[in-house]
């Protein structure tokens, strides 16, 4: 903050050096040696002195300045490690099969497994449905009033929370998907194409109109 930094010869005051070491250690992805610190701090800084001040400042705090081999890092205090268990989550992208299945349930709910398979064109593995249920994104809905009374799937409150929707009706429609440039291949046929109805009847016993 003062013009000391601009000087080639005069190092910033030690308290300022301490701030610098604090910021650099915090942002660094790995522990830094004194040499690393000297390479990054303005000319003339005394990294060991700044480190010592900083370590003292953090004594008894929730995080500490620790020595890792010949390098330094900021780490959480060992007595608080029980708080860190949640920090170890590993995020993985949902598989394509799971994403598609989830999308179909969201857009078509309540939907049976047979219908999901019909839309995807491949069978839905047991693991996919189980995974989505374990994530609390889909759950069993009512049974369909058709032969065999198949179970249906619907999305959960947890799904809406995760995706920031207030209701499943907030999912964008096909037209909006296209407007957003997400859907740029051939336009889908009209929503009510009667030519399909024959084929549909062969495959599906019509379900009674459900109340919305």
């Amino acid at each position, binding site marked *: 903050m003062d013009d000391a930094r601009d000087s080639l010869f005069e190092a910033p005051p030690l308290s300022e050096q301490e701030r610098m070491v604090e910021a650099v250690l915090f942002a660094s992805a790995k522990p830094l040696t004194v040499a690393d610190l000297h390479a990054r701090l303005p000319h003339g800084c005394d990294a060991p002195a700044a480190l010592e001040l900083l370590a003292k400042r953090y004594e008894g705090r929730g995080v500490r300045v620790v020595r890792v081999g010949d390098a330094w890092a900021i780490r959480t205090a060992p007595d608080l490690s029980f708080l860190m268990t949640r920090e170890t989550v590993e995020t993985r992208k949902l598989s394509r099969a799971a994403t598609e299945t989830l999308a179909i349930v969201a857009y078509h709910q309540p939907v049976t497994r047979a219908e999901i398979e019909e839309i995807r064109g491949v069978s839905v593995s047991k693991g996919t449905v189980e995974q989505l249920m374990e994530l609390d994104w889909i759950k069993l809905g009512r049974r369909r009033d058709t032969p065999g009374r198949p179970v249906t799937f619907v999305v959960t409150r947890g799904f809406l929370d995760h995706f920031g929707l207030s209701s499943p009706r907030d999912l964008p429609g096909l037209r909006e998907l296209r407007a957003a440039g997400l859907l740029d291949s051939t*336009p889908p046929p009209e929503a009510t194409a009667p030519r399909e109805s024959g084929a549909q009847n062969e495959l599906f016993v019509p379900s009674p109109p459900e109340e919305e």
Partner: protein
Amino acid sequence: MAEDFMEGPARDSDPQAVAERLAAEALIVDVEGFEGPLDVLLTLSRTQKVDLRAISVLKLARQYLAFVERARELRLELAADYLVMAAWLAFLKSRLLLPPDPEEEGPSAEDLAVHLAFQLERLEAMRNAAAQLMALDHLGRDVFARGEPQNVSRARKVEWKATILDLMKSYSRLRTRDDFRPFVMDREGVWTMEEALERLRPLMGHVGDWTDLMAFLPEGWDVDPARRRSATASTFAATLELAKNGRLDLQQDKTFGPIRIRGRSAGSA
């Protein structure tokens, strides 16, 4: 389009017209760099060097029309929205010059001019806001997050991640697959002939009097136009089928008149 800006050459002696042509020429140089007609108007308005709220819309309209005219002379392809704006400005210009017509409905020329000035001011304000936003400290450039998020525990929990964008993308991928069409959504608005037949057959025994065909639409299908259309068509087709089988009579008094049906008992057949 108004002629008064078409007679350009005749007015070339007018210093103002010359200045406008030069301004138009300058714009032509990088017409590619403009983001639509509003952007051009905003650039032109800067030549007036006044507060945007006090801008002369009439003058602006003239400058813009000169710009479009110049583009035309140079046989430059302008996007359609530039021409739409030109047509609208020509209209506005003529309205601003004529005394207001008390008979005229709708907003006055002044209202339209005020709104245009507002649009320009708002666009400029958003430009400035964007610049101010980008001048803020950026995370990862000016301000930094924890470089070494801590992993302490050995027991790792996998968190599956999907965004709404993933969801929308995979859904649109499914919906645009050429070789396959999902059926579930379509069916909602379609009443098939089979369904209509199934509904009509048991009813026919009880229809002694002429009854309007529309009375046989399934419940709840007479409100939404698409559903009503589908149900009407399939119900009508089903009555033809039943008439062919001798189960009922059909009657229509005049073209487009209501179609009425009557059940035919086995005896009268």
